[in-house]
């Protein structure tokens, strides 16, 4: 049965590709217009909230807090992580718990040099299970879950805990990339600026942050206990957690506090990570489909969740659109170049600004909104815009959309096929 579904999805991909191959330019334009309109609506909606002035309430209470660091084979980053975690200033840290999820490397040995409680699990059971076990034993009113490759800043707790209101289930932060070196990391740096910058910042104004990012989130223990902790069978437990909190009518807060984390340095690692994310997205979208256009959940039900849900098919279909256009372009220009070469002629390279086509203009206006949101994202954490960001920016504009859409397509295939989920 699963084999059949996998086969059907491949068939669907081929049909989509062929349809876009032979599509009339007029229909292409219709497709582009639809995508353009959807984007304009989302951008308008987010743009409007720019002017919403929502005052953050600050309380003087500083409840007790437990910090949980789940780790698995993280000898390379654990030392720096724990140093940052222990340097965080907060008067009521109950304890710092390191859950060693059956590591086979020196993680435990390194961690034992720090004043943290080590919870050792012989068998590797995954991040969600580690967190759940630690949460069960946690005494603090708040629980901060910090990944073992994340380096929270010193003042994070003092700056964020006072803003956790009674209605909130979790507080999320601006996750950024720690010292990008490779081109893929530079690309992810720019991408993180968007996905953890302007969008959740604006989204929090109408309580529509959907994800509680894995690298660092502060939860209320009472909320976690009420909803039953993390789903141990879920591949993206952070997205599931966000949806579950919304389903129980908890709010998710957001503060633009810069929290650097390590990201995959190479393409293969990035691909593995993204396939996991996107399979999780698809799986959880289906799991929580009752949120879709359900006004019981306010803007989450009518905006954030539908937007996420619309983006998956749009990304997948657009992948084949771009692929088909690209193949045709390469084929036609290759044929022409061959013809020109055969007869020893040079194609005219004269450029006339009036040659710019309608779809290119739409792409250009889309690019402008992209830059606008990037600018908001960067200004949130006072990040400087320098030439060193240019390679990442070029990658995120010209390479990322296509590569990312490819990951979505592959994820859909794997999800349909029902391949084994891997962390």
């Amino acid at each position: 049965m699963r084999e059949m579904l996998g086969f059907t999805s491949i068939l669907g991909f081929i049909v989509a590709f062929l349809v876009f191959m032979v599509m009339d330019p007029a229909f292409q334009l219709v497709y582009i217009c639809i995508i353009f309109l959807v984007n304009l609506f989302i951008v308008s909606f987010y743009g409007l909230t720019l002017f919403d002035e929502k005052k953050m309430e600050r309380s003087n209470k500083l409840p007790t807090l437990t910090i949980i660091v789940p780790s698995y084979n993280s000898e390379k980053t654990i030392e720096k992580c724990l140093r940052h975690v222990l340097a965080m200033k907060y008067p009521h840290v109950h304890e710092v718990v390191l859950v060693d999820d059956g590591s086979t490397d020196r993680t435990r040995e390194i961690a034992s040099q720090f004043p943290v409680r080590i919870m050792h699990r012989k068998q590797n059971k995954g991040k969600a299970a580690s967190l759940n076990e630690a949460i069960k034993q946690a005494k603090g009113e708040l629980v901060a879950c910090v990944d073992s490759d994340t380096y929270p800043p010193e003042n994070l707790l003092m700056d964020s805990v006072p803003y956790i209101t009674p209605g909130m289930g979790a507080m999320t932060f601006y996750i950024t990339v720690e010292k990008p070196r490779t081109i893929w990391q530079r690309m992810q740096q720019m991408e993180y600026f968007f996905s953890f910058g302007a969008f959740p910042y604006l989204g929090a104004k109408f309580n529509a942050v959907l994800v509680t990012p894995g690298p660092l989130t502060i939860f209320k223990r009472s909320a976690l206990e009420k909803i039953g902790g993390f789903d141990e069978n879920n591949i993206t437990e952070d997205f599931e957690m966000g949806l579950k909190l919304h389903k129980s009518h908890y709010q998710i807060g957001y503060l633009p506090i810069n929290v650097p984390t390590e990201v995959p340095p190479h393409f293969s690692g990035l691909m593995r990570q993204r396939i996991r994310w996107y399979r999780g997205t698809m799986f959880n979208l289906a799991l929580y489909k009752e949120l879709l256009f359900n006004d019981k959940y306010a803007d989450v039900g009518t905006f954030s969740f539908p937007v996420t849900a619309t983006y998956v098919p749009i990304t997948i279909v657009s992948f084949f659109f771009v692929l088909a256009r690209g193949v045709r372009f390469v084929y036609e220009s290759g044929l022409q170049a061959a013809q020109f070469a055969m007869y020893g002629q040079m194609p005219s390279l004269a450029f006339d600004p009036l040659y710019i086509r309608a779809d290119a203009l739409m792409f250009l206006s889309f690019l402008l909104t992209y830059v606008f949101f990037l600018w908001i994202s960067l200004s949130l954490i006072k990040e400087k815009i320098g030439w060193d960001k240019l390679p990442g920016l070029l990658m995120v504009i010209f390479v990322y959309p296509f590569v990312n859409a490819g990951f979505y397509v592959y994820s859909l295939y794997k999800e349909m096929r029902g391949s084994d989920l891997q962390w």
Partner: protein
Amino acid sequence: MVNLKYAIAAILMVNLFFITLSVIDYMDMQRLLRFTNDLASFSSETADLESAVTLLRAEQPSSEYCAIIDTAYQQKITKTNDLMERMLAYERANMFAEFFALKRQFLLSNIQLWQVSQMEKQYCATNHTDVLYIYSSDPACSECQVQGKILDFVRASCPNVRTFVMDIKESMATLDMIKMKYNVTSAPSIVAGGKTYSKVLPADEIKQLVSCQ
């Protein structure tokens, strides 16, 4: 007032969409305007040469008169291929504005110019050769673009060559008759010296064909 937000966002979306559309429309209009201008001067030159040849017919043909016409052709004829290329690119880029009427006018002027050039031969002892190039506006016709470039190259090196263009897909009485007369069925084709060549002709072959000087 949750729904008001959505209404405002929708209004904003429609407005932004129309702003983009009006930029596209503006570009369309610019293309149309520019091409209309070029075409107007091209048509007036055609009419000029047409009346010059008519005048030549009425007068006693003399080599001085013929020289005037030859010079005029040499100066003006270089535009045809360039105009055609631009027209094709504009037509592809346009979203709203129709190029249909302008295209037909351009093609008709071209044919008139070709006929006048042939007529001139009856009265003047000129050594020019008329080359009618039949192209296809289909972007998939990569040979058409090569042939256009080759003709440009030939014309630049041979001053006695006059090139004219015709669209194979366009259906007009004059064009249809020419297509039938010269048995043109595919693009690119070249009609020169009363003969039809239905393939891409390299520069050397054309030069031989037109006895390049």
